[in-house]
C-alpha cells in the first residue's frame, strides 16, 4: 500500500483544498490517471497519481484544506492486490507458496469491482447522439444530469440545456467553478515579486524576418482541414524548444545557489485567462513533438487552461517559458522569469516592415523576439547565441 499525498505544485504552495475526488474506494488507477482536483492559488489543478493500483481508502474529505505532503488516500498496489481479487494463474503462483493478504486490511476493503472495471475512469455516460449535439454546441456534458438508461445523458437532456442557457454561458459558468481569479492574482503577485527580488534579469532583443514562416504556413494550411491548421505560435514554440535543447543552460531551474539543467524540454506556455488571470502550464517534451502534434497539444492545453482544468504535472514541470502577445498585442514584450526557471522568451506581434533582402528594400513580415535571462545562470553572450538560434530556426520552418 502506498500513500497518495497532497503534491507540491510550485515552491510557493503550502497547502491545497480538496474540491473533487474523481475516484472512489475500489476504483483502479494507473500511473498518470487524474484522481482528484485540488484548489490552489493557481486555480483548480487536476492531480495525477504516479502509482498504479486500487484505491483503498479516501483519507481527506471534500473542502478540507491540508498542507503539502498530507496523505490524501491509500492506494493498494497491483502486486499486493492480485491474490485477493482473483487467484493468479497456477504457473505464476504455485500453491505451495501462497501470498498472504494482510489480515487487518480485510474488514476495511471496499467491495471489489469485477476485473473488467479495472482502469475504467468514472465519467458520465452519454449517448452518441447527445455527444454529437453537445460537441456541436460546445456544451460540457459533465454539467448535465442524464435521464436515459442507467442515468446516461441523452439527446433530449442536451437539448434541454441548450434551451435554458445562452450559448456562451456554459464555459463561463464552468470557469467560475474552477478558477478563483483573486487567488490566482495573489499567486502571480507572489511569484513575480519573488522573481524581481531574487533574479537579476538581463534583456536581449532580436528582430526576425518571418516572411518565410508565413508563406510556408499558408501553403501547408491550404492542405489541412481548419481544425488542424498550424498557427505561427506553434512554430515559435517549437523553435524555442529546439534551441533550448541545444542551449541547455537556458532550460532548467536555479535552486540552492546553483543551476540544474533539466533533462527534458517542457515549454511553459503563457495563457491569458479572460477576467485577468494568467497561467503558464507545460507543453511536455515540446522539442520532441512534430508540428502537427505540438499544435494539437497546444489547442488542448489552451482550452483546458481556460476551462480551469490544468494537470498537476503541467503546473510543476515547465523548464522554460514562452510568452506571446499574438496579433492584438504590441511589437515587443520583456517577460519576468517564473522562478525557479532561468529564462523566458517573448514574441511580439508580426508587423510589415521595409526590409533589406539581397541588397534591395522590400516589404517583409518581422517579429521582435526577446529573451529575459537569469544572470546568475547565464550571461548576455550565451543569451545572444540562444536568441539568434531561435531566429535562425525560424528561417527554415520546414525543418522544425
Amino acid at each position, binding site marked *: 500500500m502506498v500513500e497518495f499525498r497532497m503534491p507540491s505544485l510550485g515552491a510557493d504552495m503550502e497547502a491545497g483544498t480538496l474540491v473533487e475526488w474523481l475516484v472512489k474506494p475500489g476504483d483502479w488507477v494507473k500511473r498518470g490517471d487524474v484522481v482528484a482536483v485540488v484548489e490552489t492559488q493557481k486555480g483548480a489543478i487536476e492531480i495525477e497519481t504516479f502509482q498504479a493500483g486500487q484505491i483503498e481508502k479516501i483519507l481527506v474529505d471534500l473542502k478540507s484544506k491540508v498542507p503539502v505532503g498530507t496523505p490524501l488516500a491509500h492506494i493498494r498496489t497491483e502486486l499486493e492486490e492480485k491474490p485477493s481479487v482473483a487467484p493468479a494463474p497456477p504457473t505464476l503462483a504455485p500453491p505451495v507458496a501462497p501470498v498472504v493478504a494482510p489480515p487487518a486490511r480485510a474488514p476495511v476493503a471496499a467491495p471489489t469491482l469485477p476485473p473488467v472495471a479495472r482502469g475504467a475512469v468514472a465519467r458520465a455516460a452519454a*449517448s*452518441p*447522439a*447527445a*455527444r*454529437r449535439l453537445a460537441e456541436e454546441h460546445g456544451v460540457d456534458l459533465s454539467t448535465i444530469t*442524464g*435521464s*436515459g*438508461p*442507467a*442515468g*446516461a445523458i*441523452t*439527446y*433530449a437532456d442536451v437539448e434541454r440545456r441548450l434551451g435554458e442557457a445562452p450559448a456562451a454561458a456554459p464555459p463561463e459558468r464552468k470557469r467560475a467553478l474552477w478558477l478563483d481569479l483573486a487567488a490566482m492574482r495573489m499567486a502571480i503577485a507572489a511569484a513575480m515579486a519573488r522573481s524581481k527580488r531574487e533574479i537579476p534579469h538581463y534583456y536581449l532583443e532580436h528582430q526576425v524576418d518571418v516572411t518565410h514562416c508565413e508563406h510556408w504556413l499558408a501553403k501547408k494550411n491550404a492542405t489541412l482541414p481548419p481544425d488542424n491548421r498550424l498557427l505561427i505560435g506553434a512554430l515559435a514554440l517549437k523553435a524555442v524548444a529546439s534551441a533550448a535543447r541545444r542551449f541547455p543552460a537556458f532550460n532548467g531551474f536555479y535552486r540552492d545557489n546553483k543551476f540544474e539543467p533539466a533533462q527534458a524540454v517542457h515549454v511553459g506556455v503563457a495563457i491569458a485567462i479572460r477576467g485577468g488571470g494568467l497561467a503558464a502550464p507545460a507543453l511536455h517534451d515540446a522539442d520532441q513533438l512534430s508540428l502537427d502534434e505540438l499544435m494539437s497539444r497546444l489547442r488542448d492545453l489552451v482550452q483546458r487552461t481556460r476551462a480551469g482544468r490544468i494537470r498537476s504535472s503541467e503546473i510543476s514541470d515547465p523548464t522554460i517559458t514562452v510568452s506571446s502577445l499574438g496579433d492584438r498585442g504590441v511589437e515587443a514584450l520583456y517577460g519576468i522569469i517564473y522562478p525557479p526557471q532561468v529564462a523566458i522568451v517573448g514574441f511580439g506581434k508580426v508587423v510589415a516592415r521595409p526590409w533589406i533582402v539581397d541588397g534591395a528594400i522590400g516589404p517583409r513580415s518581422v517579429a521582435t523576439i526577446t529573451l529575459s535571462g537569469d544572470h546568475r545562470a547565464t550571461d548576455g553572450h550565451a543569451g545572444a547565441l540562444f536568441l539568434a538560434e531561435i531566429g535562425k530556426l525560424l528561417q527554415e520552418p520546414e525543418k522544425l
Partner: protein
Amino acid sequence: MQQAAVRPRTIEMTYREAVREALRDAIKRDDRVFLMGEDVGRYGGCYAVSHGLLAEFGPERIRDTPLSESGFTGAGIGAAMAGMRPIVELMTVNFSLLALDQILNTAATVRHMSGNQFGVPLVIRMATGAGRQLAAQHSHSLEGWYAHIPGIKVLAPGTLEDARGMLWTALQDPDPVLIFENVMLYNMTGQLAADAGPVNIDKAAVRRSGRDISLITYGGSLWKTLEAATALAAEGIEAEVIDLRSLRPLDDASIIASVAKTRRAVVVDEGWRSGSLAAEVGMRIVEQAFWSLDAPVGRVCSEEVPIPYPRHLENAAIPQTPKIVAAAKAALGRA
C-alpha cells in the same frame, strides 16, 4: 363518406387463403409454374395452404413428393434451370436443413459456378416459428441463417398483402427466393383488397409511425410488436414499427432513416439471440447510425433453448409483447 366511395372493395380472408390465392394466381398466369412438396396434393398441405388446388389444377401442377427434402429441392433446382418456374414447399424450416446442401451449395451458387450461364429461378416456401406446440424439431426460426447466404433472397411476409403479393414478384426473380411463412399467421384473419396483387420484395415497411423508438421486426413477431406499440402509446411512448419484409437483402435505408429519427432501436426476432438476424440489424445500425443513437440498441429474441413442448414454456421461450414493451422502455430509461 366520399372516402368510402373510392376505397377499393375488400374481402375478409385468412393469411392461409391469401397464400393460396397467390399460388392459384401464379399457376394460372404462368404455365411454367408448378407446386411441389410433401402432402401438398391429396392432403392439401400440412397447413392446408394448398387445399383444393390438386382438384383445381391436377397432378401436373400440384405434385406430391416423397419424404426427401434434398431430392425434391434438387428436382426443383433442375426444373428451374431447365426453364420452369417451380414453387417448392418445405414443410418446416427445421426440415429444410435436409435440403440445405441443395439450397446453399447448388441453388445459391450455380450462377456463380457456371460463369453466369445458368440461373435458378426457384421459389421455396416454408413454414417457420413456434407457438403451435410442435416441439423442438418443428418450431424453430432459422430464416436468419438463410439470410446469411449470398445468391438467394429471403422474404418474410407478415401481412395478408405480402402473403398474397410476394410470391408472384419472387417468381419473376432470376435467382432463388425463399419465403418464410410464420405458422402463427396462417389462421390470422383480415381484410384484403379484392384487387390485391404483386408487391415489391426489397423494401421494409413502416407499419406504425412514431418518434420515440424504432421497433424493428418481421414475420410472426410483427403483430406482437404492433401490440407492444399500442401498449407503449398508452404510456406516452410513440413507437415506430418497421416490418423488414425482406431479410436478405436488408433494406438498410429504411432502417437507418427510422433510427435517425427516433434515435433508439429494439430489434425483435424469433431466432436465437447469438448470431441472429437481430444481431446483424443491430450492427448495421451501429455502423451507419452510431452518432444518432441515444441508447444501446436492444434485442428481443428467443431464449437459447430448443423450443419446448409445454405451452407455458413455449410461450416463455419466444418474444412476447410484455418483453418487447420492457425492452422499449429500457431503451428510453423508463424501465
